């Protein structure tokens, strides 16, 4: 009987285990997760859970966020708190942090991302990141009184965190060197409208300068900018992007680990025939757009890639080609910030032309739809405060045009 090792115990690892069973794999499945917690839902960590006035404990948080286990995965062996150090693709083994060596017939890379840290000098106390339950608990414990918070990085996580902390009564400044908040995805016009909206609510944005150091002795007291300005801060939240957890595959010449793990359209890792990659680290071509492999850090991608990767791996283990239609998932994300809900389909960041086709950028609350095209073809849409009843129509615009070529 063939055995599958899933390295990574978050959403992508869990969904792949489920889909391996759904695809007919009856052999053993072992999921190795570095975190001690079973797979749980991360998006609420920057929103509802951070805002939770009940001050839930770690166990209560987990009770609320943990994914329900499907009965088909009752016999999946979850080895939590277990870090995988390395893999040998010819011997078909992985080596755990304990030194133990485990064998596999099929391997799933689901190790995801970790937050990038700012490499600047200064005290470490009062500096936070936000990706795990433990990060969220640590940050919340530091918010015991009204604080001066500086959020470094105005991507989606940074903006969601800033909005939640403002609602909790803290003074919040967001520093971003590259332009208006979330501009890489939203485009400058919508990003500037969001900035104005958030500024009206009381968030200060400092756009342009970089951070040179944190001031203070034991604890952060301020953020020094390269313009000479110093921002008062006793809490800093760093949300400056992510790093792919691919070190455990380092040194394997056949692999392209230049940005995540390069795979083909079936999620098979390039240079292997019994290894697949899923979730945030999988860099795969999506014929919805073109043949360029890209990683997609959206919440729906672990679930989508798990399905295809499981089918690919099971077919391989059974010695047959996967013989599936092109894999063309529609990327989708949402974000809740103050009184705004963003819902996006496609990949707006690929656009060469951005047009707001409904609503008024001066009144985001009233509902705005922005469309993103490249070479005249739709590549993305972002709805702000439109009824959820519109979503099917917005998503189906992508479904009907897939696949190309």
């Amino acid at each position, binding site marked *: 009987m063939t055995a599958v090792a899933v390295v990574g115990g978050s959403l992508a690892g869990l*969904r792949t285990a489920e889909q391996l069973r759904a695809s007919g794999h009856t052999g053993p499945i072992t999921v190795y997760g570095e975190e001690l917690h079973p797979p749980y*839902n991360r*998006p*609420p960590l920057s929103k509802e859970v951070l805002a939770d006035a009940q001050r839930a404990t770690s166990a209560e948080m987990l009770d609320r*966020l943990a*994914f*329900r286990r*499907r009965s088909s995965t009752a016999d999946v062996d979850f080895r939590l708190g277990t870090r995988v150090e390395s893999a040998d693709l010819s011997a078909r083994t992985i080596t755990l942090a304990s030194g133990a060596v485990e064998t596999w017939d099929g391997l799933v890379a689901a190790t995801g991302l970790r937050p990038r840290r700012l490499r600047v000098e200064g005290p470490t106390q009062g500096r936070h990141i936000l990706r795990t339950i433990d990060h969220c608990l640590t940050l919340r414990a530091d918010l015991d009184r009204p604080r001066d918070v500086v959020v470094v990085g105005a991507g989606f996580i940074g903006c969601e965190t800033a909005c939640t902390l403002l609602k909790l009564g803290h003074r919040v400044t967001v520093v971003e060197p590259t332009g208006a908040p979330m501009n890489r995805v939203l485009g400058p016009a919508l990003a500037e409208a969001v900035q104005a909206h958030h500024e009206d609510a009381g968030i200060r944005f400092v756009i342009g300068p970089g951070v040179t150091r944190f001031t203070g002795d034991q604890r952060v007291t301020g953020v020094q900018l390269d313009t000479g300005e110093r921002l008062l801060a006793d809490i800093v939240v760093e949300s400056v992007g992510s790093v792919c957890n691919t070190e455990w595959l380092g040194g394997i010449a056949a692999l392209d680990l230049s940005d995540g793990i390069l795979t083909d359209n079936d999620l098979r890792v390039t240079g292997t025939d019994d290894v697949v990659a899923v979730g945030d680290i999988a860099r795969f071509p999506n014929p919805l757009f073109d043949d360029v492999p890209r990683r997609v850090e959206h*919440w*729906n991608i672990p*679930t989508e890639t798990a399905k295809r990767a499981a089918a690919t791996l099971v077919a391989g283990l059974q010695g047959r080609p996967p013989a599936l239609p092109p894999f063309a998932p529609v990327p*989708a994300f*949402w974000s*809740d910030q103050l009184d705004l809900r963003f*819902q996006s389909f496609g990949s707006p960041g690929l656009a060469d032309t951005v047009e707001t086709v409904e609503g008024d950028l001066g009144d985001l609350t009233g509902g705005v739809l922005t469309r993103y095209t490249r070479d005249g073809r739709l590549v993305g849409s972002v709805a702000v405060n439109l*009824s*959820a*009843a519109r*979503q*099917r129509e917005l*998503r189906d615009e992508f479904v009907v045009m897939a696949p190309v070529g």
Partner: protein
Amino acid sequence: MKVTVDMTLCEDHGQCAIAAPNVFRINDDGKLEYDANPEERELTNVEEAADVCPVQAILIGD
């Protein structure tokens, strides 16, 4: 099959209505309505809906 949506968690994201349109729908007010006893043939779609729910509010019973 029995389907329950925890309405204390539901935030009307509407992803379920894309995955299983015969079971879940967003009404004209933008609020979720659903069939609590769909036919068995909807199981795959309902499982998909439960998977894609951003707040994981959908529970599938027997």
